């Protein structure tokens, strides 16, 4: 049956699996003071950057690719993929994203939404004063 070496192996592998997440989280926490923005990637390329921390009200945006559509809803400081015609609906299940480092991915359409912390010198962001 299960031996103590098994437990040691499983625990060490579980800890190892948390390392990338911990690194992303730590780098996100350090930089979140400047507010956040969301980046939408299509096919691995940057498609659109949306400022989040100064955003008010709701906006929707539909991305159409050759494989289908993804509807993105921006509600105040949160962003979510609310509808898609992909078979697995993983991105829709992900729900609203708010904090730096959170992502929602639609693998079938190669669409990805990512929340990032604002870098003070990021030229892509136009800030509302």
């Amino acid at each position: 049956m299960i031996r103590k070496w098994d437990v040691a192996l499983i625990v060490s592998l579980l800890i190892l699996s948390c390392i990338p997440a911990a690194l992303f989280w730590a780098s996100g926490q350090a930089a979140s003071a400047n507010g956040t923005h969301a980046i939408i990637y299509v096919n691995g390329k940057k498609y659109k950057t949306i400022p989040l921390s100064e955003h008010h009200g709701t906006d929707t945006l539909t991305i159409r690719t050759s494989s289908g559509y993804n509807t993105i809803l921006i509600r105040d400081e949160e962003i979510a993929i609310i509808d898609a015609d992909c078979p697995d609906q993983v991105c829709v299940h992900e729900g609203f994203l708010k904090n730096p480092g959170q992502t929602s991915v639609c693998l079938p359409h190669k669409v990805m939404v990512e929340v990032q912390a604002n870098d003070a010198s990021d030229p892509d962001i136009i800030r509302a004063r």
Partner: protein
Amino acid sequence: MNKTFHLIILSLFVAQSLVLYIVEGMLPVPFIAPGAKLGLANLITVIALYALPRKRDVALILLLRIILSTAFGGGINAFFYSVSGAALSLGSMLVFQKCGKFSLIGVSAAGGIFHNFGQVLVACFIVENMKIMLYLPVLAVAGTGTGILIGITAMVTLKHLQKLPLYKRIQQTC
């Protein structure tokens, strides 16, 4: 004669794992995380790992199963996910089995974790973003759970397989 026996045994393993793969596709699975599933077909891989004396045969069974399951359902993307997951999973299981310190359950759980790790790597490559790694802890926990379940099932199956005269013949001639 021995060559035919060898061929039939390998074919049986491939057929069983393909059937498990197709049956698994019909089962409703609660949504935990993208890519998390039972991995029933891995049961055959684990059993083959312990029942067949030559490890080359295990790799062959796994590769044939992936090629066939790509043909039966799942597209070319699913093929890449399967191959990278299977390669890492089988590699790690071989290492941990050879090491000798771990029981079948530990080996199988490690295989489950490494399988998900391989899939995350391919997902990172396809979407061209390392942030997919954020799913790794959830997937590792899911992989541990299914890996332990598969390990227990394989252990019980092997215990009963060993009573068959056929099992001795596999050990001697394959």
